[in-house]
């Protein structure tokens, strides 16, 4: 075995040039080569107490798979990851590793932590490119389980149960499986072919995916039981977009981030001559500071915007988006208007001609400057308006990216399913809801959170469903 690589810095992730990528939808990060992956793996000290694993919501055996990379056994490394994760190629791209596994890495105490996420991505891509072996379908157990929603929690739950021999059907409301992975996260961060590949792998394990079925409308949870499903997992996500309730939000050119991203990602409005329209060009303001806001801003830029602003009411320090995403956005030329908050969206109105086609379109946004006051209950300093500090910015499109709430469709059609004051489904530590044999997880429970925490919840529920149906 070669000696450990004691470099304090990790191998940088190769990326497309910012000037180039700002005008295309191809993936930004290009991935490690075999040589870089092995070199980076050599930085892992294979700690006996494995602090990294404690930081992973699905408890991937991290040092074990990295050992296999050191040996050049990439498929073996993949098999180790896939014991714990159903979506390695996805997690290697969109997990906030810097606050999870990598934040616990011993190498991070002095220098940079091992690039665990980058290695995970490398291994998953290697498998997807070179592995031709079909997954083995396990012996059927003779139990049917229904999964509502094909996002990260649903796919994880489905995968874990299918591997145990359950007959699993995933019901998806949209026409393509993947949930937020296909409608929310843009192509340049997570190519849709990768999501399709992960879904295909699950189908080879025997998972059935039924698109165009809205549970709560086409079928209800109770009808699923009538159809012979013995347990149901609800992973319907946090679909309902929030608005600010300020004047002008109904003007033409104001989108929720969900709508803007869905038009571009799911409906492919970014392609040439799309069938689904989207407003492009001009100046764009994205209100909010999360990962979704970064995705919307960078999508608007790629669609041909002249200028794109992130308008956020706190400062850079409080910005909730991943550091890497913020850096990428800055490199591409997104302008950050921090400590400022919109109070009104302004629209065109020709007083002499009510039929003027420009009437009702966005022309600008009135904002107020903010300063940081006392910390709130979560410890984040509360932004306070500075009196008489109003100013206007000229924009043609405004994208509201200020969070989402759980979708109420299932709650309203499932008797006895209890939710909290924010609309999140109430579950116990096993993911069991107030209804017998009905489990839930992901954003439908927590409100908007991360892909990996949703996967963790899907995993927990799969384990509990297996125990329940094995009784």
């Amino acid at each position, binding site marked *: 075995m070669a000696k450990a690589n004691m470099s304090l810095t990790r191998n940088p992730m190769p990326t497309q040039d910012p000037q180039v990528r700002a005008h295309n939808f191809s993936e930004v990060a290009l991935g490690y080569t075999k040589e870089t992956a092995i070199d980076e793996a050599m930085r892992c000290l294979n700690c006996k107490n494995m602090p990294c694993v404690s930081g992973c919501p699905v408890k991937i055996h991290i040092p074990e798979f990295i050992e296999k990379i050191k040996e050049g056994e990439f498929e073996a490394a993949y098999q180790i990851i896939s014991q714990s994760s159903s979506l390695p190629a996805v997690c290697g791209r969109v997990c906030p590793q810097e606050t999870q596994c990598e934040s616990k890495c011993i190498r991070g105490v002095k220098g940079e932590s091992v690039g665990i996420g980058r290695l995970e991505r490398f291994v998953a891509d290697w498998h997807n490119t070179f592995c031709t072996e079909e997954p083995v379908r396990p012996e059927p157990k003779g139990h049917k389980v229904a999964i509502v929603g094909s996002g990260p929690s649903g796919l994880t739950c489905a995968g874990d149960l299918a591997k145990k021999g359950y007959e699993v059907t995933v019901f998806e409301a949209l026409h393509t499986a993947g949930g937020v992975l296909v409608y929310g996260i843009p192509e340049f961060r997570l190519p849709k072919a990768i999501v399709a590949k992960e879904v295909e792998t699950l189908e080879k394990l025997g998972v059935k995916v039924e698109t165009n079925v*809205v549970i709560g409308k*086409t*079928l209800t949870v109770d009808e699923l039981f009538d159809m012979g499903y013995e347990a149901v997992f609800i992973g319907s996500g946090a679909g*309902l977009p929030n*608005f600010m309730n300020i004047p002008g939000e*109904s003007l033409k050119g104001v989108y929720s981030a969900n*709508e803007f991203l869905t038009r571009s990602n799911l409906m492919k409005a970014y392609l040439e001559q799309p069938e689904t329209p989207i407003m492009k060009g001009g100046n764009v303001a994205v209100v909010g500071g999360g990962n979704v806001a970064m995705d919307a801003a960078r999508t608007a830029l790629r669609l041909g915007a002249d200028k794109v602003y992130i308008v956020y009411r706190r400062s850079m320090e409080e910005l909730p988006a991943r550091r890497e995403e913020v850096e990428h956005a800055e490199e591409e030329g997104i302008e950050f208007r921090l400590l400022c908050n919109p109070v009104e969206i302004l629209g065109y109105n020709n007083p002499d001609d009510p039929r003027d086609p420009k009437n009702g379109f966005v022309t600008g946004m009135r904002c107020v400057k903010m300063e940081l006051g006392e910390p709130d209950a979560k410890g984040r300093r509360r932004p306070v308006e500075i009196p008489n500090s109003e100013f206007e910015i000229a924009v043609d499109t405004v994208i509201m990216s200020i969070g989402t709430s759980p979708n109420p469709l299932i709650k309203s059609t499932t008797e006895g399913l209890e939710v909290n004051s924010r609309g999140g489904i109430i579950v116990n530590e096993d993911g069991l809801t107030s209804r017998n044999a009905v489990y839930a997880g992901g954003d439908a429970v927590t409100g908007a959170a991360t892909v990996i925490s949703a996967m963790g919840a899907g995993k927990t529920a799969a384990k509990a469903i297996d125990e329940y149906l094995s009784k």
Partner: protein
Amino acid sequence: MYKIVEKKVLNPTVVQLQIEAPLVANKAKPGQFIILRVDESGERIPLTVAGTNKEKGTVKIIFQIVGGTTEKLSHKEEGEYIQDFVGPLGVATHLDGLKKVCIVGGGVGCAIAMPIAEKLHEIGAEVTSIIGFRNKDLLILEDEFRACSNTLRIMTDDGSYGEHGNVTVPLKEMLEAGEQFDMIITIGPLIMMKFVVATAKPFGTPVTVSMNPIMIDGTGMCGGCRLTLNVDGKKVTKFACVDGPDFNGYEVDFDEAMSRGRMYFDFERHAHDAACNLFKKEVK
């Protein structure tokens, strides 16, 4: 994929399809809608359900050719398939307890009004139907309305059939003559529904309107279908896909809805022209 089991051309711009979709047929109630995609690159468009046949597992849709997608859909033939068909979405029209109802339909909106009139007739309500069209050539569903209406008034803008004038004329007449409707249910162009509400207002008759804004997912996820209601002097945002499509006509901000409906006007016009060129059809 969803099979087209029957196709009927109702008039030069309006087509009726029966689509095989047993799960939707089993559930759909008057007032609810579906979302479809014609093919793999297609956009999602909402269309209100115009009827169902539970035994055959089919759903009837009636649509007007207005943009690229409806143009493409109109070229699909019996036995062919469309890519996606999902529903039923939205809340069904509330009909319980209604004894005497006036249905006011305009243009292709009559296709949505018809199953509501049928249902009311079935539950024993007295149904007055006022249906309006631009001219005789665009008239649809006359026999169907006659079969389920106690009174039927047909209006054309140019007087080429039925009575000359728009739908608010007979409505006003009846209300002035002292007709007491439990509810007026109106479905058609926004401008027509706005004037139906204005006509009914002095008489205080409740009006239900059916909104048909731009949508993508139809499950509350995108918020593109949002509209503003004025409820007791307060502005409230609602999503037509999950809170509607029916709303109290007195509360709806029609001007805003009309403005939002024109958001992609240029795009749609080009898309329609492009689709027409594709089918080598003259662009009118």
